[in-house]
């Protein structure tokens, strides 16, 4: 009977995932944009509902309609007017829109932290916490019943909207060809406004239902959007019925049933293993199964190759790359030389409290350079660079602590491990373009984070793994200044590597690949080899940067960084600063480092800032 109860609970939880997935599919169908800000919007509406119910003590009949019908759709209307309409008007590419949604996501997160802080709140219930009792001790909560009915109604309404109404056809027409829709007497702005209001309204509903009676905090709550991602990807971003089935069966029921499975126990035999690996497997059950589903769906479903469009990173990158370095005049070296000299002399002008921020800045410059290499030079969207950096740091720390390998050797080993991860990700991503390439990297990042970093056996849990600083021939780089200068040397080497990636024939091939896959193939470029190469090379740089970040903090701790938020944040920061040149990586790292320094805050837990300087520097 326990399995029946687990299935019932799974269906109820899965219904919320289905609702979240449907909202994401709806937004994509209705706007042509994969809304990375979906979780952020859901979280904002959930907070608004909590504010009205728990803080202002408004009655349910007022608070719920305001949250669901005013706040959520209102956010959608605002976003359409301020962000997405201008992008549509100037014919922005898919990656540009993707970055815009990432920006909105970070804005939501920042707003939530600013207004409600990171304290975990208890979400306000939308229906009573009582439950219905069926035969054989099977229970179904009123709130679960409400979610089921609500999801069913939304599903039917959306199906009718798209297949039975004229506005549904208009919405699809506007997504397909906005200009032609306008020529067909359709007010594209009105349709887009309705679409965004619907999409964000559904995000709000998801948020309120997810938070009903559950803990509510910006960071973990927004992570729940991963479930929505996996449901939407299984549904290929188009099929609402598949989204419902995936949410309910794959996520809800499977995860619920899995919670009772014991990997150390062989069924019907009474044999029980107590080996560490079975414990590890059992601990994985609690990990995010949606990350696993997301990875499998993205790797297995080849039909996704046809969806997602917009392979080129047009708009994100200036078209002046490839072989440009050859034409650089001597005066072109003046600025880098001056910046380098200033960086070397910096420790003489700042105090020991500020120096850690400078150390972080240098390490970040390296990891940001890896994003410039893969996105700026080769046009491949990567949303897992923080995880790659973390993987390098994790392996380096592990081989140093467990095997006694010197840190100076462990760093390149960490870089090579990151390279392998990059190549392993690049392989399934070979045929992916634009949005789905980004999602594939994101999925791998989530997978590694969920199943490696979050696992106490591998990554040491909340304490993390000690990350020692290097030494050479009895010379230690442990002191703040010496470690900073050591970082500068490594950064110089990595920047040199990056510079070589973009110059000469290699640079021109990568630029050709970035601008057009087809054009590059037609001139005889083996895209597979070059894509794998650039994934590997950029991951090596990220891995080395990650090692330095961990050594700066003296600990590899995945809880305070190297996650989804950090990856997205890094990507947006580098894009904004200029992903087309190596200068963009140094500019973005300097701005990030100095912002942390000025605020003197502990920004790490928010995911808004990538790393917190270690106090023991």
């Amino acid at each position, binding site marked *: 009977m326990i399995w029946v109860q687990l299935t019932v609970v799974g269906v109820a939880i899965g219904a919320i995932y289905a609702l979240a997935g449907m909202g994401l599919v709806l937004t994509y169908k209705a706007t042509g944009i994969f809304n990375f800000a979906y979780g952020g919007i859901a979280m904002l509406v959930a907070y608004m509902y909590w504010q009205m119910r728990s803080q202002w003590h408004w009655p349910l009949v007022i608070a719920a309609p305001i949250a669901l019908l005013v706040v959520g759709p209102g956010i959608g209307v605002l976003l359409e007017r301020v962000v997405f309409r201008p992008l549509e008007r100037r014919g922005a590419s898919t990656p540009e829109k993707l970055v815009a949604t990432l920006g909105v996501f970070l804005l939501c997160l920042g707003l939530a932290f600013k207004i409600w802080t990171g304290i975990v709140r208890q979400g306000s219930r939308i229906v009573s916490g009582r439950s219905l009792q069926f035969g054989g001790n099977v229970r179904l909560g009123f709130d679960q019943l409400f979610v089921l009915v609500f999801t069913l109604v939304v599903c039917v309404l959306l199906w009718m909207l798209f297949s039975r109404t*004229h506005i549904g056809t208009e919405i699809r*027409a506007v997504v397909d060809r906005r200009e032609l829709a*306008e020529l067909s007497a*359709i007010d594209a702005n009105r349709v887009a406004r309705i679409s965004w209001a619907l999409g964000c309204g559904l995000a709000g509903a998801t948020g309120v239902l997810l938070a009903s009676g559950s803990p509510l905090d910006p960071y973990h709550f927004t992570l729940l959007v991963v479930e929505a991602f996996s449901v939407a990807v299984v549904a290929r971003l188009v099929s609402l019925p598949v989204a419902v089935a995936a949410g309910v069966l794959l996520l809800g029921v499977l995860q619920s049933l899995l919670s009772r499975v014991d990997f150390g126990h062989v069924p019907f035999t009474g044999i029980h293993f107590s080996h560490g690996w079975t414990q590890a497997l059992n601990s994985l059950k609690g990990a995010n199964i949606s990350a696993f589903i997301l990875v499998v769906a993205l790797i297995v479903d080849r039909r996704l190759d046809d969806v997602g469009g917009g392979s080129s990173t047009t708009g994100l990158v200036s078209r002046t790359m490839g072989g440009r370095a050859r034409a650089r005049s001597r005066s072109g070296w003046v600025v880098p030389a001056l910046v380098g000299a200033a960086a070397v002399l910096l420790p003489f002008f700042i105090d020991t409290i500020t120096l850690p921020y400078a150390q972080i800045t240098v390490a970040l410059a390296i990891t940001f350079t890896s994003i410039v290499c893969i996105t700026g030079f080769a046009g491949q969207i990567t949303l897992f660079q923080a995880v790659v950096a973390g993987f390098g740091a994790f392996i380096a720390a592990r081989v140093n602590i467990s095997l006694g390998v010197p840190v100076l050797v462990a760093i390149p080993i960490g870089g090579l491990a990151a390279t392998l991860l990059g190549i392993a990700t690049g392989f399934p991503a070979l045929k992916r373009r634009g949005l789905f390439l980004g999602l594939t990297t994101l999925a791998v990042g989530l997978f590694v984070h969920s199943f490696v970093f979050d696992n106490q056996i591998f990554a040491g849990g909340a304490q993390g793994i000690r990350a020692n600083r290097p030494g050479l021939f009895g010379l230690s780089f442990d002191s703040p200044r010496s470690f900073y200068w050591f970082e500068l040397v490594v950064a110089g080497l990595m920047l040199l590597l990056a510079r070589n990636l973009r110059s000469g024939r290699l640079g021109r091939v990568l630029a050709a690949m970035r601008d057009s896959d087809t054009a590059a193939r037609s001139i005889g470029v083996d895209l597979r080899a070059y894509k794998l190469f650039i994934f590997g090379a950029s991951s090596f740089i990220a891995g080395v940067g990650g090692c330095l970040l961990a050594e700066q903090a003296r600990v590899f701790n995945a809880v305070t960084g190297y996650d989804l938020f950090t990856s997205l944040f890094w990507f947006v920061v580098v894009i904004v600063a200029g992903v087309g040149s190596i200068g963009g990586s140094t500019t973005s790292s300097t701005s990030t480092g100095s912002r942390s320094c000025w605020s003197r805050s502990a920004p790490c837990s928010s995911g808004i800032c990538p790393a917190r300087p270690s106090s023991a520097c």
Partner: protein
Amino acid sequence: MPAALLEVEDLSVAYGRISALDGVDLVVPDGSVVALLGPNGAGKSTLLKAVAGLVPPIAGRVVLAGESLEGVPAHCRADLGVCLIPEGRGIFPSLTVADNLDVALSSHDEGMRRVVDYFPVLGERRAQLAGTLSGGEQQMLALARAVGAQPRLLMADELSLGLAPLLVRTIAETLERVHEEESRTILLVEQYATLALRLADLVYILNRGRLVWAGEPDELRASKVLVESYLGG
């Protein structure tokens, strides 16, 4: 001479610093077929887009049946009866043929009857995705959408582009039929000068954003210099 349905007065359009149209004056009489000819980059498509409201002019104005269209957005112009079949394939590839027509038709039953009458093949393919039609069928669908919308002014930009000669002839015959049976006013931009001259009552030639000649098709055919200079012999 019938009254003017469309008047373009001193119209100038620029893309950034590059001027695409420079002080163009043009009149399309009600119920006539007007051809707009000229070499590549002359500004023909830009003129149609400016009339349809897709690109804003930097000077001049567009007048439809005596009413200025200044500040009127594209979808409202379509409501007023200005219909443009844009260059390329003027269809929604992800929608079915039926949905494509549904989006365009002003009066559904009447429009659909008319469309099936003109293009029987589209009636058979109602459930097919428009993007999976052949090039010729896609162009027929684009024309069908325009015909079904019953516009006051039908503008077609390079309808024959990339089509086999047989299909070009079919499309020309359909346009002729639409004009004769329904007295629609048509403004054509066409590379096939012979096709345009066969249909047109009035011809304008644009070159580098300026109007260089206006007259009747017979006058144009008679002028060897004009034909050689602007229509490639």
